[in-house]
């Protein structure tokens, strides 16, 4: 089998995500590339949770609506998702659910009870049964449990083993592949790791889905990764604390979703004026307002691009998968420090919380170094005029200099000024940095092209929509263009990527086609758009349907 998908569902509190991760790890262990989509409502108990694990011999960056297997811990799972089953698909279910027409019922709860476990351990039983039904060797199952479970490992293993033993017949055999297993990371973990790889010292955040897991991950791993995490009183404090830390020399990142970012915008502008490097991670969710907290949308692009009053250069990047997230968070942090500007990484629920088989970005990344003050003659000037507009950085505590940073318009030394000539000169100095930024970005891959490069029809997408878009396009023989950098907009690379395509279709998860609107301002017009804004991501199968409609 080239690929297969399993849906695991139950109620919130059943440990559905943990079960999904275990299944993904098992498939990963066998050499499959996996993608895990995690769907959960904004509540802690009750409600319906499910995840779809798609395993494939090839790279996989999205899930499909259709699945081969449903692993149901409650009736609702079957009722809600039965329609997704492919022909020949099967349901593995708790035998407490009565009246199921096909598949295999197993007494998950009974096994747990018999062995003295607690209710949530039925997900271990479910994973045991799933492994057996897929013909997966017992050692693989045990190995994954041993690597990933700390609490009550033996009991969980025993429960999984009992369920495994109850299965007499293999439904379909999942073969072991030749490929080496890959690590599995969420988009948020990849963002965090990319930043740490670029020397992140400090991560500051106030919890807000779907950014919260960056905070959880880095807080948990802080000693291992050599970072410090802080959770202050609100996002205003988060962002200004980060700026203070960066002024004193710490590479700092902050993360939030749209609502929290709204509170941070005063700092965006402050960072622009004071020329203090900072990386903002904005994990979008369905808005406006509190919106739909645990579901996805790409509707903050124009907000982030335009956030903060006044004119100043900024960098905005938008990764579409975990590998790009790792690459771009590092690049954005380095660029923020080289150019002394605010940088932004746009993610969304679908990228942030989905799990990917992680591969390293190929080749060496460009690493612009910090421009450090080297001491020497004369007084240190924090905002010294230079050819590039970049003033050498020094930090308080450093010998022989006084570092004056300020939110007011200022002279080279950092003293407030209201003189028109000085004001204009300092504005020009800051804006000058954009030229260097553009020049630097030219050396990097800013726009990606996939699919049939000669296709006249080209899909234009950004962020997590890339996964579904590329897959659908490959099957339909179309081309896809995806900008990784949206500001400064890589117009030349983008036009080159479009090439001779003359039918442009914007594909976005928002209601108004925000990237399409941005592109119009550069004179690049979409012929049509395919938009989804029901808070769910595109899947290749549904997108193919909409593309066929659109191109027929």
């Amino acid at each position: 089998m080239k690929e297969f998908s399993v849906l695991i569902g139950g109620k919130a509190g059943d440990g559905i995500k943990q079960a999904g991760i275990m299944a993904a790890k098992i498939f990963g262990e066998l050499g499959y590339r996996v993608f895990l989509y995690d769907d959960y409502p904004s509540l802690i108990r009750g409600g319906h949770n499910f995840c779809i694990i798609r395993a494939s011999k090839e790279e996989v960056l999205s899930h499909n609506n259709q699945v081969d297997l449903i692993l149901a811990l409650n009736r609702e799972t079957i009722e809600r998702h039965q329609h997704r089953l492919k022909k020949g698909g099967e349901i593995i279910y708790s035998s407490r659910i009565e009246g199921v027409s096909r598949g295999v019922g197993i007494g998950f709860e009974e096994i747990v009870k018999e062995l003295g476990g607690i209710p949530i351990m039925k997900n271990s039983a479910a994973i045991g049964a799933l492994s057996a039904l897929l013909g997966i060797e017992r050692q693989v199952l045990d190995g994954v449990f041993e690597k990933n479970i700390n609490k009550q490992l033996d009991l969980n293993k025993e429960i999984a083993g009992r369920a495994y033993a109850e299965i007499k017949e293999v439904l379909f055999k999942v073969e072991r592949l030749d490929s080496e297993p890959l690590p599995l990371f969420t988009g948020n973990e990849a963002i965090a790791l990319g930043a740490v790889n670029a020397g992140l010292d400090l991560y500051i955040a106030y919890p807000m889905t779907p950014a919260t897991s960056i905070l959880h991950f880095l807080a948990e791993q802080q000693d291992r990764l050599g970072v410090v995490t802080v959770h202050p009183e609100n996002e205003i404090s988060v962002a200004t604390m980060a700026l203070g830390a960066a002024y004193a020399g710490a590479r700092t990142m902050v993360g939030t979703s749209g609502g929290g970012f709204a509170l941070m915008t005063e700092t965006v502008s402050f960072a622009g004026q004071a020329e203090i490097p900072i990386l903002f991670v904005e994990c979008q969710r369905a808005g406006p307002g509190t919106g739909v907290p645990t579901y996805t949308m790409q509707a903050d692009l124009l907000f982030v691009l335009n956030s903060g009053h006044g004119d100043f250069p900024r960098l905005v990047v938008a990764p579409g998968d975990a590998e790009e997230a790792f690459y771009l968070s590092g690049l954005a942090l380095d660029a923020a420090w080289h150019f002394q500007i605010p940088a932004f990484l746009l993610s969304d629920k679908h990228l942030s919380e989905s799990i990917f088989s992680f591969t390293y970005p190929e080749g060496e990344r460009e690493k612009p170094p910090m421009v450090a003050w080297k001491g020497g003659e004369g007084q240190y000037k924090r905002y010294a005029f230079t050819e590039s507009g970049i003033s050498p950085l020094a930090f308080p505590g450093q010998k022989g200099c006084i570092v004056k940073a300020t939110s007011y318009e200022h002279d080279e030394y950092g003293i407030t000024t209201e003189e028109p000539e000085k004001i204009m000169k300092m504005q020009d100095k800051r804006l000058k940095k954009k030229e260097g930024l553009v020049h630097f970005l030219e050396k990097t891959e800013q726009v990606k092209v996939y699919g049939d490069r000669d296709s006249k029809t080209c899909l234009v997408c950004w962020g997590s929509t890339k996964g579904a878009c590329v897959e659908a396009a490959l099957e339909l023989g179309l081309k896809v263009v995806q900008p990784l950098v949206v500001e400064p907009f890589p117009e030349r690379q983008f036009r080159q990527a479009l090439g001779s395509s003359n039918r442009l279709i914007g594909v976005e998860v928002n209601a108004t086609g925000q990237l399409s609107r941005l592109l119009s301002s550069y004179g690049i017009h979409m012929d049509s758009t395919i938009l989804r804004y029901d808070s769910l991501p595109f899947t290749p199968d549904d997108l193919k349907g909409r593309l066929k409609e659109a191109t027929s």
Partner: protein
Amino acid sequence: MRSIKELGTYAENTWCPGCGNFGILTAVKKALVEAFEGGMKAEDVVMVSGIGCHAKIVDYVNVNSFYSLHGRVLPPATGISLSNPELTVICHAGDGDAYGEGIAHLIFTAKRNVDITLIVHDNRVYGLTTGQFTPTSPEGFKGRSTPKGSPERPINPLELVLSAGATFVARGYSGKIGHLKNLILEGVSHRGFSFIEVLQPCYTFFNTYSFYNERVYELEEGEGGTSDRNLAVSLARKWSYDSVDASIPIGIFYKEQRPTFQERILGDRPLLKRKGQDVFGFIKEAV
């Protein structure tokens, strides 16, 4: 080592003649010179300010400074001191700044016991925006946004920070420069969050010189400044910021030792000296 004169800058001073900020500026400079004589390094001092008349002080003192946004004095100061705990961070905020726009930060900085010093230039009016009422203006204060008189009662900032958990709480008066200088030195050497509320007449919009001169008195040795919270609260309540028939104590109200935020967060590994960001090893282990 810098002298008072060397601590000045070329910035033109734009405070109104008679402004209480001059007294605070002099006290700060004197305190710094004394601290330098005691071995503190000038490059290790960072002044942080909000926005308002008070905040101009950072332009007038030749040390490292972070001229922040209105209300945002304490979070960046926390960031600075987390980044480099060896720095001496002295914050300047207005009453609008500290008790209005940034009040959440004040409560939390006290709660965390961040090892920094906050000097509030409390003129009980918005100076820079030309005379509106603030959280410490008396009830009935006729400011430009309240021509019929402030409809609100003032808060008592000392009581507020005491209940929030500040470990050093003091009040000074810009008219008593020597006393204020000593408070600043005590605050700076205190390990933990030092809160110094300074009564500062605004010559132009709320001239309180004679009001304070008639009422302010210095706490005697032993009258406060211990870890007796009840005593500190009762001293703080002697004047409600509203009453006219009270005497107003200045001095150290409260002092206590408690682990600082920096110590709790960083342990023995200062942020900028941490080693071993082995991302690739981490990823390898994750397989």
